[in-house]
């Protein structure tokens, strides 16, 4: 039975992807095997920081529809669900940067975020509502998922009493995108998937002698804040499609 998994695919060869994206080589593979250097390193079967399994599966399906696999990894293959999980468990999710005092009322689009709750609740409540869909997103084929997300992005309806579908979609798209392109220390952009894809060399940046060297490619292998050729992020969690 074909039972596609999100996140790291079963039997998925990272080496093959690396070869495709032109990094390859022993250093990268070693980086993989060596695993991770930061505090969040855990083995497979690691618990999520914030999500439950059903939410993680929904997110994997949604994120991989926003950023599907092609010659470059999909969102979840690049650790985007791990990224979102950690974001929701930390300051961003808690709304640490937000003014949260009441009273709350909904405003015009020009007035921005007016929810009475922080982003972690926005994600939890929205996804829990969307998990009630029949059939759920995770059970749809690629085309079905694409249509479902298009519907979400264009819907004028609310998902819950206080969450407009579009508001959640915008936040979801933003986080998915951040997870694909942020420095790997934040757990996404695994193996520099996003940076390899566009050709961004990363945090180590010194271009005094190249900035006016016109039209020459600058194919430096990406390097992030953690000074690690493999990016320094742990392997994305394995996300089974579910029973």
């Amino acid at each position, binding site marked *: 039975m074909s039972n596609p998994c999100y996140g790291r695919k079963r039997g998925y060869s990272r080496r093959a992807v690396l070869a495709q994206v032109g990094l390859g080589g022993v250093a990268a593979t070693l980086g993989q095997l060596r695993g991770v250097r930061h505090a969040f390193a855990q083995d497979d079967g690691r618990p999520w920081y914030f999500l439950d399994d059903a939410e993680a599966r929904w997110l994997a399906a949604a994120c991989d529809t926003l950023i599907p696999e092609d010659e470059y990894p999909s969102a979840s293959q690049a650790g985007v669900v791990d990224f979102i999980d950690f974001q929701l468990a930390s300051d961003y999710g808690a709304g640490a940067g937000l*003014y949260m005092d009441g009273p709350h009322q909904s405003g015009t689009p020009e007035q921005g975020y007016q929810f009475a709750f922080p982003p972690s609740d926005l994600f939890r409540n929205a996804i829990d509502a969307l998990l009630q869909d029949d059939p759920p997103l995770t059970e749809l084929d690629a085309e079905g998922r694409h249509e479902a997300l298009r519907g979400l*992005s264009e819907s004028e309806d609310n998902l819950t009493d206080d969450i407009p579908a579009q508001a959640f979609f915008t936040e979801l798209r933003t986080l998915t995108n951040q997870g694909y392109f942020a420095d790997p220390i934040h757990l996404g952009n695994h193996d520099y998937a996003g940076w390899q894809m566009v*050709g961004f060399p990363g*945090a180590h940046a010194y271009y005094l002698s*190249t*900035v006016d060297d016109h039209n020459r490619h*600058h194919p430096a292998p990406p390097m992030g804040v953690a000074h690690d050729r493999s990016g320094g992020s742990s392997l994305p969690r394995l996300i089974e499609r579910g029973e």
Partner: protein
Amino acid sequence: MADYILPKTDVVIVGGGWTGLTTAYELAREGQRCVVLERGRDRHTATSFAGPEEHDELKYALHHAHMMELRKETLTFRNTRDQRALPMRRLGSFLPGSGLGGAGIHWNGQLWRPLPSDLEMRSHYADRYGADFIPDELSIQDWGVSYDELEPHLEFFERICGTAGTAGNLDGEPREGGNRHEGPRASGYPNPPMKQPIATTLFGEAAARLGMSPFPMPSANVTQAYENPYGAQLHPCTYCGFCERFGCGYHAKADPIICVYDRIKDHENFEIRCDSQVLRVEKASDGKTATGVTYLDKSGVEYFQPADIVCLNAYALWNVHLMLVSGLGEPYDPETRSGVVGRNYSYQTIAAVDVFLDDEIVTNPFMGAGALGVAVDDFNGDNFDHSDLGFLGGGYIACTQYHGRPISYQPVPEGTPAWGAEWKKAVRDNYLHHTGIVVHGSSAATPDNYLDLDPTWKDAYGRPLLRMTFDFPQNDRKMSDYVLQRAVEIAEEMDHVRSISTINRAAQDSRYSLVPYQTTHNAGGAVIGTDPRTSVVNRYGQMWDHHNVFVFGACLFPQNLGYNPTGPLMGLAYWTLHHLKSDYLSNPRPLMDA
């Protein structure tokens, strides 16, 4: 009542950014004991902003780790008076600073001078086109200070920053390669212009073919080893692409910590207290002066800091807030159009052209700097004939290359879906073959755009939030559309162009939105002038109502010009400090008759 009353100081300065630290430098060296109170944390360019750790786009550019914390202080916002203003719960349109150095540590470093006519906005347009030309919906006015008066001070700040550029008008002599529209300058830029990448070069060539005068954007990203007049050492910019929204650990972007603070911090007359939130300015019973300020330290202890002189250097918006919560000056009432504090709040009109280039053009967008670009000034201010245009003001058009940070820099041609396989392919196909042209335009003041106190929401200290009522007037929408069309013409003239698309934040059918970033160029609200009925401070930056309160920053602008504000506002700061030192200190009094 404050928990403690501290010994009196000569000068208390609210805010430790460009204006606050410069005020402290100049007055401490003049023998005045200065205490700077800064609400944010202590930090230093060398230790706090070093790469590569600093080069974390998510943390600094998108989660705003260097900027103000809204849960402590924010404002409420509405477009028009018939709406209910709601709190700005999340940063977006502008990113005010907090912490030592203020927003000056995470600025771009685009360092402009005002045009002479900018400073005489109303009389200039009335003289050239007739008084009827000025639309009734606008409350624009003259600054009360002329370009010639500001010139030495503008020049001095350019030297403080080691500014890189090409002069276009040396003492009235036009100079090839510079901005031929600029006012006469007594001296050239202290450093040569920045190197230009391919995209900005193509833009300059196209603009020149169209008969315009392209020139390198004046830049406080320094181009060679340099010592400023205070003795600060600056290093050449590395074009690292982590500039605006980041601090510069290379000491290559002029910031108030390296350029000013380090040169005064050990002086016996200088003291700074970080984590010190000023709550209000206290007034004397004679109603003519302030007695000092009340502030809260980190642990919640409240102090009264008495002072002979109070300087407000808390950034445009928070200066106005402090005046309103302290009862300094008469608040503006849009109903009766009387009062001055909060009046003539203005912003900046921003539009842009996305230019997609042939594959053989490799832009390497990640090789960037905050003030890297080529500009034309032919459609700024009154550099072009407005007779038949039906608006006043203008903007500069610049092709820039700030950065290629991959979350924020994802150019895709018009019509590309916002996500999915097609979007993903477009992101990778265009990343290295795109450039952006910005139209950075003026913002005229109107009687309906203003700042006051919100009736409902409070900050973490129990003070009413500042309330902003703002939308772009019709004048600015027309102006922005017109200058954007000129930018499109340049883009179309560029070699190797595949396609272009445009975006205009002040488009005809839109409203000003607090959500997308535009600029941290909030202006007005405590404007400078020569008439106490239409200005908060006199032409020396001194409050009409309280002669020992001096005000600094873009809140002084009667309307916003087409340029970034820091050059003009620092010119004003040095102008004010000059009069404070040479005239006020020896004989404290109102420097102008009301």
